[in-house]
Structures are given as structure tokens and as C-alpha cells.
């Protein structure tokens, strides 16, 4: 359990600089962030909306309780990062631009899996207890 906690905080903690810093820049529509959006073909007004959504999602992920909202937050972040990967591939960006969101996706999925392992720890004796995961 202690190892699980460590891995959870490593994977989830790394999401904050990975997604959080970019989202703050998106909200203030910094010229770098606008350049990223327009180079992928997206409109500039998308920046503040996505920035707020990312920040809210990250905050919800680390809040205690709120299991259903957390599920939605993980889902939203995963869809967004998958979209970022697809956009970079569709534009034909370099491998680095495809690898970075892929790495973020890896951390995101790891955080999700470990979070659910922590929520429903596998029991030693499964014979008498129903360990089916429900929402």
C-alpha cells in the first residue's frame, strides 16, 4: 500500500507541472500558448476554456472523495491529451511533439489505474468477499 501511494503521488504529482503550467499560460493567452494552438490549426479562443478545464480537472483529481466527479475529470483529461496526440500527428509535427503528450497520457493512465487500485485494494482472501468494482 505504501509503494502504491508513492507511485500514485509520483504519477499524479508530475501531471501538475506537465498540464498545470501550460494551462495557466493558456488562460492568460500568452503569445507562446496562442502560437501552439494556431500552429495545430485550432482557434485562439480555445486557450482560456481549455486552460480552465485542465486546472479544474487537476484539482478534482487530487481532491479527496468525489469519486464520480473524479471519473469525469480523468476522462476529460485523457480525451484532451489523446486529442493533442492526434492533432500533432495530423499536422505532421516532429516526433518530439508527438512523444510529449504521449508521455503525459502514460502518466495520466498510470495515475488513474493506481488511484483505482488504492480505492479498491485487492483482498488476500477473495473467496468470501465480492471484490467487483462499482462506481
Amino acid at each position, binding site marked *: 500500500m505504501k509503494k502504491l501511494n508513492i507511485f500514485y503521488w509520483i504519477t499524479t504529482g508530475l501531471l501538475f507541472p506537465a498540464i498545470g503550467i501550460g494551462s495557466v499560460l493558456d488562460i492568460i493567452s500568452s503569445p507562446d500558448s496562442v502560437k501552439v494552438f494556431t500552429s495545430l490549426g485550432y482557434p485562439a479562443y*480555445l486557450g482560456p476554456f481549455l486552460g480552465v*478545464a485542465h486546472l479544474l480537472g487537476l484539482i478534482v483529481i487530487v481532491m479527496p472523495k468525489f469519486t464520480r466527479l473524479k471519473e469525469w475529470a480523468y476522462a476529460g483529461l485523457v480525451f484532451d491529451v489523446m486529442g493533442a496526440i492526434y492533432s500533432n500527428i495530423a499536422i505532421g509535427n516532429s516526433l518530439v511533439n508527438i512523444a510529449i503528450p504521449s508521455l503525459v497520457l502514460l502518466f495520466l493512465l498510470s495515475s488513474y489505474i493506481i488511484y483505482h487500485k488504492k480505492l479498491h485494494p485487492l483482498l488476500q482472501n477473495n473467496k468470501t468477499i465480492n471484490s467487483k468494482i462499482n462506481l
Partner: protein
Amino acid sequence: MKTTKIIFWATTGLLFLTQGLLPVLTTNDPNTIEAMSYLGYPGYFVLMLAVYKLLGGFILIIPQIPARIKEWAYAGFAIDFVAAFISLAVVDGFNGTLIIPIVALVTLILSYLSYHKMNSNKLK
């Protein structure tokens, strides 16, 4: 309970047809492509959305899919409709076309609530 089932299948069926199948069928339609670029989105976005939505539509309409995956599909559609609302509002201002994502969102909420009501009843 019977009304809940009717509401679920009516709303989810509507969502499957209009949000799951229709985007795939209209990916090469010039109106769709023009509407996307009018809102500012790139050309490849039409295909990306269509694939996402087709998957989501199937996940919602097939009963055997696990609850957690359905939760993600509902989340994805909700994000899509809210983003559509924001895009339309920013580009077109607050006028009549905003009713489309609002109706879609209401249909989604009804499907979501009736789905969870049906499943909570099943446990009893």
C-alpha cells in the same frame, strides 16, 4: 420504472443516431467542413470528432458495456456539447443556433439520469 426505460432508450437512441452515426456520415459533406472551419477548427478535426463520437455512441447504446466505460462516454459527450456551445457563443454570439448544443446536452442529461436510475434499481 417503465417510463425510465422509455426515456433511456428514446434519449440514448437519439444520441446514437444524431451524435454517433450522423457525424460519421457527414465527414465529407462540404457543409460540415465549412461549419468546422467557420468555428475555427482545423480540417482533420471533423474526422477526429466523428471517430470519438462513433465510439461513444456505440458505448452508450450497447447494454453490456461496463458502467465505468459508459461513464467516460457520457463525460466525453458532455465535454463535446459544452465546447460546441462555447465555440458557437464566441464566434456567433448569443443567438438561436445555441439551442442545438443545449438540446443535445439536455438529451444527454436525461439519458445519463435514466441510465443510473435503471441500474440502481437493478441492484435491488
